[in-house]
């Protein structure tokens, strides 16, 4: 057996204006799990893409099974036994499991696809690795955890010795994630090596044999779970000590601000996404909405903020019915909205920081008077937002597209918090941003709560929900399974509810 399954040796990769990988070396041995840790933009994706043959390094080598190789593309990497499971699955939903697994490498008999042999191999593989699956099920009928299993089988079918897993637990419930970690551990017992990319520190400590931390394209630390802690890893990633858990005082809830009754909302395909929701959010409290993504969270946020019209039910803000009102009418009532997809809804990429700072306020005084924009006022306002919310930008006239994700998010938060607000709808407020910015935004959300704002926090990150919420509603399949007080909540309990299990 090879000494080294997969290695990067002094890999350097430049993009215009960015040194994405700077002399990076990692090595993966058979039967081990290597966790690759780093913030967005630290160079993890670039490194993985180099190892998978998507990019060619400017200098340095890729080693596969003790042999220096020159990869010409992903096909090359796959034929040498590298398998990759992407964060967003690369499956064809209306096709069957076995068809998805052989796709791109179909066995043929006299020019026709021969699925029988493939089916036998799939069954054999799934039995050997404990990855039970029905080879003839349609992928679109499978839950997310099963779809991920198809992706893993796809790699194993191609005789992978190395699995690269990119953020594999992002779409799973805590229990599903634990199960996956168990499966991965079993896989390594046959000598397989795994590169595991994640930003969840707890998982790294739970599963990894070796940990490599990247920052600004460089390896800044190599360690093992026994030598470090969550705090230690976070410090390595960020380069300074960070607060992972923002301190918070007890809530002092006031009057009901948001009241939702029997809310029914359809998704884009006209299917029922929310099925009779009832809940309230009071002034000065944070109601967290937990749940695996795709269980109605997006539709909930869109219905409350006026972007989607409910099919049935009533939504009241401060006692006034606002069901099916326009986004502008709702904003006018003192509702701020941090949208889940900042690129899609939150900013206009080609607009300057200044223009983005008034995106939903341009029509009001003092930003415009009688239809004419007042550029000096707008720039002054943008400068205030930038200063107060620590948005790192050379000036307020650069396009928002030049800002990092965290700074874009701080700009959005700053914009939304620049008025007196009664209700804050925060959807995935810290998705894909660096730890420093997460801490900053968490503090600001708590500050709003303490000022008496009612906060609806929707997040797929259970840690975020647990850390900020005063009460937690768990959404599963368009219904609220239960609302629990944050004091009584733990990962286990919420995880079961997220999977739709009540006892």
């Amino acid at each position, binding site marked *: 057996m090879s000494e080294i399954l997969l290695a990067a040796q002094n890999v350097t990769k430049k993009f*215009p204006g960015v040194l994405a990988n700077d002399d990076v070396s990692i090595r993966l041995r058979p039967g081990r799990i290597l966790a690759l840790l780093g913030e967005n933009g630290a160079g993890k994706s670039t490194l993985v893409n180099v190892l998978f043959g998507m990019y060619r390094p400017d200098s340095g080598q890729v080693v596969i099974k003790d042999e220096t190789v020159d990869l010409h593309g992903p096909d090359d990497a796959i034929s040498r036994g590298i398998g990759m499971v992407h964060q967003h699955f690369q499956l064809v939903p209306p096709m069957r499991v076995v068809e998805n697994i052989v796709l791109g490498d179909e066995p043929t008999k006299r020019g026709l696809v021969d699925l029988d042999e493939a089916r036998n191999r799939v069954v054999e593989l799934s039995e050997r690795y404990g990855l039970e699956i029905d080879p003839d099920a349609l992928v679109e009928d499978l839950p997310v955890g099963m779809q991920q299993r198809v992706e893993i089988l796809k790699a194993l079918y191609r005789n992978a010795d190395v699995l690269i897993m990119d953020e594999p637990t992002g779409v799973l419930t805590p229990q599903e994630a634990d199960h996956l970690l168990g499966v991965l551990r079993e896989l390594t017992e046959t000598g397989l090596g795994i590169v595991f990319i994640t930003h969840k520190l707890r998982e790294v400590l739970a599963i990894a044999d070796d940990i490599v931390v990247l920052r600004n394209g460089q390896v800044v630390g190599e360690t093992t779970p026994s030598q470090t802690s969550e705090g230690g890893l976070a410090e390595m990633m960020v380069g300074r000590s960070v607060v992972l858990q923002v301190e918070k005082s007890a809530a002092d809830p006031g009057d009901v601000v948001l009241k939702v009754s029997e809310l029914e909302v359809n998704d884009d395909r006209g299917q029922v996404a929310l099925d009779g929701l009832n809940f309230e959010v009071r002034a000065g409290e944070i109601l967290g909405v937990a749940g695996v993504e795709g269980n109605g969270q997006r539709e909930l946020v869109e219905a409350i*903020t006026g*972007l989607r019209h409910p099919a049935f039910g009533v939504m009241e803000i401060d006692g006034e019915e606002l069901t099916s009102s*326009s*986004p*502008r009418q709702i*904003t006018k009532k003192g509702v701020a*909205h941090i*949208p889940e997809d900042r690129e*899609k*809804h*939150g*900013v*206009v*990429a*080609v*607009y300057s920081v200044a*223009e983005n700072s008034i*995106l*939903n306020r*341009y*029509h009001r005084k003092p930003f*415009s008077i009688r*239809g*004419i*924009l007042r*550029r000096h006022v707008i720039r002054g306002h943008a400068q205030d937002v930038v200063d107060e919310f620590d948005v790192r930008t050379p000036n307020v006239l650069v*396009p928002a*597209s*030049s800002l990092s994700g965290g700074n874009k998010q701080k700009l959005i938060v700053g914009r939304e918090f620049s008025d007196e607000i009664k209700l804050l709808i925060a959807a995935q407020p810290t998705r894909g941003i660096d730890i420093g910015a997460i801490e900053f935004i968490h503090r600001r959300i708590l500050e709003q709560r303490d000022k008496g704002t009612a906060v609806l926090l929707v997040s797929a990150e259970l840690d975020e929900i647990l850390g900020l919420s005063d009460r937690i509603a768990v959404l599963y399949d368009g219904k609220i399974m239960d609302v629990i007080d944050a004091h009584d909540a733990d990962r286990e309990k919420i995880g079961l509810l997220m999977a739709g299990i009540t006892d």
Partner: protein
Amino acid sequence: MSRSILRTIAVPLVAVVLGLLIGAVLILSQNASPSTAYTALVVGGLGDADAVLRTLQKATPLIFGGLAVAFAFKAGMFNIGGQGQLLIGAVFAAGVGFGIDGLPMVVHLPLALLAGAIAGAIWGGLAGTLKATTGAHEVIVTIMLNFVAGNLTDWLSANPWKDNSGNNIVARTPLVEDSATIPTLGAVPVGFLLAVAAAATCWMVLERTTYGFEVRSVGHNRNAAQYSGIKVGWIMSSTMAVAGMLAALGGAVESLGVDGRFEAGVNVGLGFEGITIALLARANPLGVIPAALLVGLMEAGASRMQFKAGVAPELIDVIQALILFFVAAPIIIKWLLRMRHDTSEQLQLGAGWGKS
């Protein structure tokens, strides 16, 4: 600042140079002299007062047509309906121009222009409203409305509004009254001044008003526009109406200032040149003016070029097509100039296709 302006105009500028260079090769291949031909072209377009007047007259509907495409483009829509909008504007302006008499010029001329503008706004707004309410793609609708407009104006000028003077058999309206005729100040037609004012107004509206902010927001990111409370459907309808009005004004100025009447077949194809102009101007309303002047000059000087250098005037169309090709494929020019891929505003012509 000057650097960023330079970057902005680099592509169209180099496109023009490349177009002229390849044009020169074509002239050589006809055993003619490029320098003689291009000199004749410039003299024909700028040599004397008459030449300047010709250039400015040619440029005027091009400015309006270019604005009609550029303005709609700012809201993310591709207005292919300039031709139809122009015809509608031309025929209704002429209708008011010959149909009413006894009004003083200060009333009659603005009234005739307004008639054309309103008709064009309705014509363009129709496409925008259909898109906003039913999702019908504006490219398809405006193309079809071009045919409707062509036939409608043919019919109007051949039947109810036909010029029955003498033994006229042509489909055309009577000449417009003097009080509805656009005058000329020296070598400068007043219609051209109107076009320049329209370009400046478009720029002001887009860059300095809340309405312009809404239009640009819809064009750049429809979802974010919706998030920020903008009525996206209204913006689609209204920008297409403005676009239709602009193209129609181009037609009205042709009727009232150049031809003196509406005649079927005279303005064929003129409305489509707006697309070339808007592309060359990279959808910038102010850029439309030099782009239209350049093309206007080439068209004004073409016959002199043919006369002096023996080069077929169709060469002008070839050069225009080449310029358009290079503008539409800026990658070639960026490669030539070794320009970095910039993140600034990109002009993409596919915008709108497939994502109604």
